[in-house]
């Protein structure tokens, strides 16, 4: 029993997805119930495994070619994966319950919950996989479920496009990831994390190889965790239902990239160059997303850009060679970002799917629970003490201060921007006068939605305290930490918030208008142009090949060749019987000559 318990975490959601898809599609309430029960079972199993460190998972051989390639079907159960499993299934459970409320009028509820269960299966698979091959399979499955869920309202063009964009963009990263996995296998002859670790140390001489390898593996995280330059899909993914944005595109799936980096940190840390690249990619993502977020008007998009920015922080921490800091921020971020999205979802659904913040206003009186919980999430996000985000962000800032001054400067600026745009959002949405009729007539969400908010609000508040978080993961050790770093962070926070309050209090329209940021640094336009250009080039090359090599050369050439040989052979057909007889006789004479005289 103990050996199978870890497998239940994985298989129960899979079973639920299968049952819903195959049997209970028509009974929407039953489907939702099955899915919620499955995720709760998964959560309980995760907790049991977390509590009993001695539990081991049964392992099966999956692919076994002796001496060449061994892929077992096994689970890693260490501190990292136990914590992550509890986190994923816990947040997942809260969001499943919230979905009952959010999706209660949706026609495609069965499909939604089946995909959600499948997502839980895949995501927990990533968390628990003990080798690269399994990880990659679950990695792709997560991408698929993300695609399905973003495109849940597939009849809306924007949602269908966003789903395609997310799938294709992450696929670019995954391709690099796959090459990276192949290189790891080539270098070490194994795909098991436990076996790769000792073997990597024998490769210290090949620094360029190691750098390329590390960067290719990092590619996977760039795609999945939406880092610059593949970040474009995440904001568009907000076309999906809000619980999905909370679960997949804020708390868990996008964090899978960071989790994977932490899991294989020994590969990245083998190369200083790779570490530096990772750190800077994270930094660039953080500041770029924060800049864009200051000029967005869609509540979910603002949150999406804040997710990008926080993921940038995590990747930055990985690049600064501190797994603890990265995981700590991932841990707190999962709570407060899920909370923010669910609170935003509560607003959106009560305002009849209005997402523009300039149509909101004065909601603090209309939706008091949502208001308080959103405030907790926002304060955690901007890193206001004593909320959880303060501790984890402070850990990353201290790390950057210690190891890389330019990155620290940018990170601090990002903290300032974060405070600015979050408070901007907060002030516009909750204070001032309602700017539309729907805002004026809104009321609080039902308990099935507010209870998850309250649970998450508690976690977002206390998740950062050492006495709480220490139980779950090793905290970053701050050696000789100066008071300077938290002080600077708080100054940035106060300046940012103050500026936002001063600018946006009682405004009816945005007083600041920066086209560059509003258009997201023209990334989408640039990528369209780039794709157009490469496609044009490819089309021209293909057209040339088709017209001149295939048409004129292969097809035309063989037809002309046949025709020419035919024309030549035609000359032999004189049509004269005696001519044929003569040639025949000549042939016989030649044959006789060869047979007799040679």
């Amino acid at each position, binding site marked *: 029993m103990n050996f199978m318990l870890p497998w239940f975490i994985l298989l129960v959601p899979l079973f639920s997805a299968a049952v819903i898809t195959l049997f209970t599609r028509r009974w929407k309430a039953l489907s939702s119930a099955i899915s919620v029960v499955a995720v709760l079972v998964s959560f309980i199993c995760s907790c049991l495994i977390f509590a009993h460190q001695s539990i081991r998972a049964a392992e099966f051989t999956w692919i076994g070619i002796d001496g060449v390639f061994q892929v077992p079907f096994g689970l890693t159960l260490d501190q990292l994966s136990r914590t992550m499993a509890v986190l994923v299934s816990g947040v997942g459970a809260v969001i499943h319950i919230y979905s009952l409320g959010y999706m209660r009028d949706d026609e495609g509820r069965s499909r939604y919950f089946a995909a959600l269960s499948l997502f839980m299966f895949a995501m927990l698979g990533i968390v628990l996989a003990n080798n690269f091959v399994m990880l990659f399979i679950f990695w792709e499955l997560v991408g698929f479920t993300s695609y399905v869920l973003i495109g849940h309202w597939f009849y809306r063009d924007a949602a269908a496009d966003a789903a395609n964009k997310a799938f294709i963009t992450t696929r670019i990263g995954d391709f690099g990831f796959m090459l990276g996995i192949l290189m790891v296998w080539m270098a070490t002859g194994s795909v098991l994390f436990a076996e790769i670790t000792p073997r990597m140390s024998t490769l210290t001489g090949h620094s360029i190889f190691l750098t390329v390898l590390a960067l290719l593996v990092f590619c996977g995280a760039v795609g999945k965790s939406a880092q610059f330059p593949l970040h474009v899909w995440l904001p568009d993914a907000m076309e999906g239902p809000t619980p999905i944005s909370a679960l997949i595109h804020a708390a868990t799936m996008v964090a899978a990239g960071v989790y994977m980096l932490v899991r294989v940190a020994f590969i990245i840390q083998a190369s200083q160059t790779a570490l530096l690249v990772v750190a800077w990619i994270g930094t660039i993502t953080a500041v770029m997303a924060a800049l864009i977020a200051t000029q967005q008007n869609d509540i979910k998009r603002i949150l999406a850009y804040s997710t990008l920015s926080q993921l940038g922080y995590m990747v930055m921490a990985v690049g600064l060679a501190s797994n603890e800091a990265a995981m700590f921020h991932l841990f707190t971020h999962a709570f407060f970002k899920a909370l923010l999205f669910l609170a935003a979802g509560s607003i959106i659904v009560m305002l009849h799917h209005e997402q523009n913040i300039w149509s909101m206003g004065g909601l603090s009186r209309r939706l008091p629970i949502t208001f308080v919980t959103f405030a907790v999430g926002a304060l955690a996000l901007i890193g206001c003490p004593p909320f959880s985000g303060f501790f984890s962000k402070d850990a990353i800032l201290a790390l950057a201060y210690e190891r890389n001054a330019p990155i620290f400067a940018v990170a601090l600026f990002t903290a300032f921007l974060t405070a600015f745009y979050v408070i901007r959002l907060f002030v516009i949405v909750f204070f001032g006068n309602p700017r539309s009729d729907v805002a004026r007539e809104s009321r609080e969400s039902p308990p099935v939605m507010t209870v998850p908010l309250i649970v998450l609000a508690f976690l977002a508040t206390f998740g950062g305290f050492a006495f709480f978080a220490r139980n779950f993961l090793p905290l970053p050790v701050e050696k000789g930490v100066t008071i300077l770093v938290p002080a600077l962070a708080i100054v940035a926070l106060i300046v940012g918030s103050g500026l936002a309050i001063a600018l946006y209090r009682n405004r009816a329209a945005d007083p600041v208008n920066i086209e560059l940021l509003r258009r997201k640094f023209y990334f989408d336009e640039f990528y369209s142009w780039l794709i157009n250009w490469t496609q044009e080039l490819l089309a021209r090359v293909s057209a040339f090949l088709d017209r001149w090599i295939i048409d004129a050369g292969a097809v035309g050439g063989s037809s002309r060749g046949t025709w020419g040989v035919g024309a030549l052979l035609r000359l032999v*057909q004189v049509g004269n019987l*005696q001519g044929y007889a003569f040639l025949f*006789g000549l042939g016989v004479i030649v044959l006789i000559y060869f047979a007799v005289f040679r």
Partner: protein
Amino acid sequence: MITLGDYLIVSGILFSIGFAGVMLRRNLIIVLMSLELMLNAANLSLVAFSRFRLGPSGLPNYNAQVFVFFIITVAAAEVAVGLAILVALFRARHTTDLKDISSLKF
């Protein structure tokens, strides 16, 4: 004394006459007759071999003579078919001149 060589020379002459006839004559009937001549040249040499190359028992090699009968049979069949084609051709074209029969020319 007439030797095997004499027979073979006659056979060769007959064959050459036949071959020349096939090559040179324009009338299809003559061409057919020349063909028969070539077949009979072959028959003659076979019979000559049979007569002059006696086996160990002193008897001629009858294989050759049986072979001759086969050739005669085949020749008869060939003439039957050939003349039938000739008649059909004459009905269609009103000629037996080979110069006029060249539809297969390109």
